[in-house]
């Protein structure tokens, strides 16, 4: 067989073509650009190992001042993860540790807002170990790492005198300073009281109550303490008589409570709230859905703060309720009222949404906190895959139709010509949408839609070339020698049109990548992976395209670069493949 000779001849041709490309400046530059773009998509993930589906978080602690319906950020610490916090009459205190550095020591941060918002006084004090509970009364900070209870003083502008005041007999889960001493509870729900013995030191804890559940929050109402916790549990503990009274309202988990004029407001998850007065517990319908995390007493009522920025103001005299929703704020944990302004403390792991390009995320992140560079690498691969699949289908159908109608002419040609004219009347985007509507959006839908419509151009190009070859003396001679149609097409027509077919293959890849981008942008392309168009579609659907230029610009630049480099390459090869044909897509 001469198949081997055929193949070796074409490999030789390929080397020849490559030499020609490299000898011309534009062609060489286009080829190098194209190859590096493809390598970026294929080999990139080996170097840049980021999961395109992984959601990135950013740890942050922020203090906001409520200004009408807006929460104005007045102080932010990035990269630290806070675990516990408390509010005082002058600001907030919280314990946090750096996220990036492993095993690093955490610190107590005290934010003093009493000097006005322009210069919040920040005080830090290093602390070894994990703080799991913290409380502050006047100038005394008490905290626990679970095993011991520590105390520090806040005077002037500094936290000082951190010392261990009590070694607990069981694991400390929470604590509060009272007039009688430090009340703390452990992980079995046992409430202990440690009294001041002498010289400001504490000794011996005595059990004052057994709750049987672990409180989430406690509030000091003078002679008695109100504990709230899971499943709407409320217990009132009289410290002196050591008596316990337990309520069991039908509630979500309770998170906070406050004593106001002899009544107790308890609040909890999903906007649940109730008022406790003597023996009656009255549920309050707030209409908000976020977790009500903190109650701030006001004149004759309270402001109840939700974790996602709801502020419920309740008047205990009239029972009137009003709600406002602060926008663009979440993770609220504590609130405080200073000089009739409301301040909020929020912390936690926030989704790293719409981060501009940085060293960590070279192409930025999207609305969902996912890395765009990783997505674009997948997108390039998918776009190339779609481009090549379309090109295989299109050049196969197109060159067959082209060769047949160019060789046989007459009836065959006019039938194919009518079909081609018909296909020319079908617009691509609407056709793909209609197809996706009935078939479901997927990569296959896109490949079919583009392939079904684009082979027409290939067929026209190949037809005119085939026609020229078919009427050549070479073919005439072959026919005179008795060669059959098949032999002539395979041996004479095909080799003659092959350079054009290969060139057209490249053009179709470029066209298909552009078309996929458009269809992907309309939501017609694959939904379970990332395509360059699909990434842009997400930018449109989330409405983030207005703010996040990187989410729009970078995928588009890649689409443009790939198609531009292919077009330039094709254009510089066109005179070599066939100087006669000048058809453009």
């Amino acid at each position, binding site marked *: 067989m001469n198949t081997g000779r055929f193949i070796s001849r074409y490999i030789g041709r390929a080397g020849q073509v490559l030499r020609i490309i490299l000898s011309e400046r534009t062609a060489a530059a286009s080829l190098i650009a194209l190859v590096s773009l493809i390598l970026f998509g294929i080999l990139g993930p080996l170097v840049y190992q980021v999961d395109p589906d992984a959601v990135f978080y950013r740890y942050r602690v922020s203090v906001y001042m409520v200004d009408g319906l807006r929460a104005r950020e007045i102080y932010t610490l990035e990269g630290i993860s806070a675990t516990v916090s408390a509010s005082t009459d002058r600001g907030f205190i919280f314990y946090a540790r750096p996220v990036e550095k492993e095993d690093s020591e955490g610190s107590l941060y005290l934010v003093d807002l009493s000097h006005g918002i322009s210069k919040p006084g920040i005080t830090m004090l290093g602390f070894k170990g994990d703080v799991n509970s913290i409380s502050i009364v006047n100038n005394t900070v008490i905290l626990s790492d679970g095993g011991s209870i520590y105390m520090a003083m806040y005077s002037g502008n500094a936290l000082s005198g951190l010392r261990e005041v009590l070694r607990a007999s069981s694991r400390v889960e929470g604590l509060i300073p009272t007039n009688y001493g430090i009340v703390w509870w452990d992980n079995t729900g046992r409430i202990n009281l440690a009294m001041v013995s002498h010289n400001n030191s504490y000794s011996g804890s005595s059990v004052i109550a057994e709750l049987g559940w672990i409180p989430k929050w406690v509030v000091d109402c003078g002679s008695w303490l109100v504990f709230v916790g899971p499943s709407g549990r409320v217990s009132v503990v009289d410290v002196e008589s050591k008596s316990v009274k337990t309520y069991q309202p039908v509630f979500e988990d309770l998170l906070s409570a406050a004593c106001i004029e002899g009544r107790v407001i308890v609040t909890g998850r999903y906007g649940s709230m109730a008022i406790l007065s003597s023996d009656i517990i009255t549920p309050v319908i707030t209409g908000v859905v976020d977790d009500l995390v903190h109650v701030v007493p006001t004149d004759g009522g309270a402001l109840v703060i939700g974790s996602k920025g709801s502020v419920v103001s309740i008047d205990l005299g009239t029972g009137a309720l009003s709600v406002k929703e602060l926008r663009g704020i979440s993770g609220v944990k504590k609130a405080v009222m200073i000089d009739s302004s409301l301040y909020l403390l929020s912390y936690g792991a926030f989704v790293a949404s719409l981060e501009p390009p940085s060293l960590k995320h070279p192409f930025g992140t999207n609305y969902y906190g996912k890395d765009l560079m990783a997505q674009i690498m997948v997108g390039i691969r998918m776009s190339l895959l779609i481009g090549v699949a379309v090109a295989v289908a299109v050049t196969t159908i197109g060159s067959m139709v082209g060769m047949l109608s160019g060789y046989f002419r007459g009836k065959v040609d006019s039938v194919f010509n009518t079909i081609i004219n018909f296909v020319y009347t079908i617009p691509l*985007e609407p056709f793909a949408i209609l197809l996706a509507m009935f078939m479901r959006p997927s990569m296959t839908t896109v490949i079919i839609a583009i392939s079904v419509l684009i082979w027409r151009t290939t067929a026209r190009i190949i037809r005119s070339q085939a026609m020229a070859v078919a009427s050549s003396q070479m073919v005439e001679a072959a026919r005179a020698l008795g060669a059959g149609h098949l032999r002539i097409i395979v041996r004479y027509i095909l080799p003659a049109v092959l350079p054009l077919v290969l060139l057209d293959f490249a053009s179709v890849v470029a066209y298909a990548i*552009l078309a996929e981008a458009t269809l992907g942008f309309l939501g017609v392309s694959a939904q379970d992976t990332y395509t360059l168009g699909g990434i842009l579609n997400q930018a449109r659907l989330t409405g983030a395209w207005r703010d996040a230029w990187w989410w*729009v610009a970078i995928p588009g630049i890649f*689409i443009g670069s790939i198609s531009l480099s292919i077009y330039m390459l094709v254009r510089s090869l066109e005179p070599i493949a066939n100087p006669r044909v000048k058809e453009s897509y």
Partner: protein
Amino acid sequence: MILRILYKVAILFLFYIAILTFQFILFRLAFPDPTIIYLREGLGPEEREIIRRSFGLDKPLYEQYVLYITNFLRGDMGFSFLYKVPVKEIVIDRLLSTMILVMPAIATAYLAAWLIGSYMAWKRGSLVEKTVLSILTLIHSLPLFWIGLIVLIVFAVELRIFPPGGMRTPPYEAASFIDKIASIDFLYHWILPYLVLTLYIMSGPALLMRASMISTMGEDFIMTLRAVGHSERRVMRDASRYSILPLITQLGITIGLSFAGSVAFETVFSWPGIGRELVIAFNSLDYPLAQGIFAIMSLAIITSNTVADILYSYLDPRVKR
């Protein structure tokens, strides 16, 4: 000649029937029982049967097919699920919105492409030509909708010179389509998408014109014109006239496809055209609306191509196909 036109019209009719047949097959393949779309939960078999009968689904398939085709040919394209009005009413309004944007853009773009393409061929090799060529090639290899997005980010979001899309500033009242577009506000919304579309549409034909003109300039008669002593400007004017034919062929195709609007582009600019309406129908699974839009688009394209074909044979008497 009349026979030729009749033949073309017959082909037109055939193509339209083919499109409708394709839609019918697609619809019946996707939904062997189309009443599923109309039914909410809790309907008994008898009610379903009533609905089936009211849509003629109890008849044999070929009768359904004939009914489908004749209804479309009569202009009855059913009711939109989404708008609860006949599909025809929506389609006509949206098609006009598309036309008012696309037609002026095509006209400007082809005029500019003719001039720029000729100029590029004339000044071949100069710095201006190289720059323009690079810009046009770049525009040509970018997706149109993406150019629209970038232009919107720059001019509407950052600089705030132009509105961020739409056809009028809501709320507005308009009794008719003419009423809707006869205002300064409309012009203010129209200008940005018009300019972007013009620039984009221009890139292809300008490159085509340049190529065509370059090949004309290699022909013998140009040398003759020069030899006779015509000024260079005069020679170029003639060359550019002779090179215009491929541009006109392209213009026919472009006008035809313009009836489909540019789906993604209209979506980006929230332009209430026929393409964006198709996306709305797609997202809300409004099958009658989608089919109606596709049928009307195809009819418009087929008709326009046929008209262009007939006109072209007048323009270039060599064409006898």
